[in-house]
């Protein structure tokens, strides 16, 4: 019997907390053929599996329109090279662009909004809605019937005093 083909996964994030959170999802990526995409070469050391593919793209925020166009170009190149079946991102701008490109090419796409966004979905998270097959928040009080879905967070005890009112704290 032929072994079923591994899911080719593109795991995308910008730097700082987005990258930290993406790493914390790596258990969910077991069994996939993972290619990582982020904004700094120095993050390569964080990979549990050093044989995974690793791509560095430029950083850009939505404040920088020229940077975004350049970034989009680089994201398209990576997606063409990897030909992923699925894309998972923890944001921000690079992840949103990757979901847009991926969705148009028929990938399954997943947006995990950063845990930092505890009062409302991030702007890129809201924009990601139409490009994400699975659209997630990490705060239960931000989830609604129309989405985003909530299934817990990458840092179960992240937070939080006086969260009672909004019911977001599990700690």
């Amino acid at each position, binding site marked *: 019997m032929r072994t079923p083909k591994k899911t080719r996964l593109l795991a995308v994030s910008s730097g700082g907390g987005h990258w930290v959170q993406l790493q914390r999802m790596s258990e*969910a990526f077991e069994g996939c053929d993972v290619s990582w995409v982020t904004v700094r070469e120095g993050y390569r050391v964080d990979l549990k599996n050093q044989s995974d593919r690793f791509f560095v793209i430029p950083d850009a925020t939505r404040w920088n329109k020229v940077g975004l166009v350049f970034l989009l170009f680089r994201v398209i190149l990576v997606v063409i090279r990897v030909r992923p079946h699925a894309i998972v991102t923890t944001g921000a701008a690079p992840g949103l662009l990757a979901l847009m490109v991926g969705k148009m090419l028929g990938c399954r796409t997943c947006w995990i909004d950063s845990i930092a966004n505890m009062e409302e979905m*991030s702007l890129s998270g809201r924009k990601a809605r139409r490009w994400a097959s699975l659209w997630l928040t990490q705060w239960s009080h931000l989830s609604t019937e129309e989405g985003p879905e909530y299934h817990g967070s990458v840092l179960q005890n992240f*937070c939080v005093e006086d969260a009672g009112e909004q019911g977001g704290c599990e700690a």
Partner: protein
Amino acid sequence: MILVTVGMQVPFDRLCKAVDDWAGRRGRDDVFIQTGETEWIPSHSEYTRMIRPDEFRKLMEQAQLLVMHVGVGSIVTASEYGTPMLLMPRRESLHETRNDHQYHAALRMRNTEGMSIALDEDDVPRMLDEIDWKKKPEVDFGSASPELIDRVSRFLEK
């Protein structure tokens, strides 16, 4: 050594200046600031604009106190070292970030042991004077929720 770090995207001079001024007044020569891409240059502290992640971790290991913006990456990385932290949020109204998520996080973290929260730069010098350098932050952010791992894992299997 006091390590000040404000992340790699937008500078955060308000915080850096507050610590640098304090260092000047107190005659401290052990402050190191990662300023981000800003024109401003500290007068009393060593500094770098950007820093590689591996160098950053080395500095974090050496630091007795971390002064940071309320960035998830900074806080989670710092929590692994058990070093006391002084945190100050970026504000949207001052174009230091895109929304006030750091401010909301700061409000919620105010009562965490070993974490001092300055809501603005005026709080910083007093908090630096009063900080308990021995008090380790009592934060363990924990692992990812099994339910989240499971949901995404199933999503990838399809």
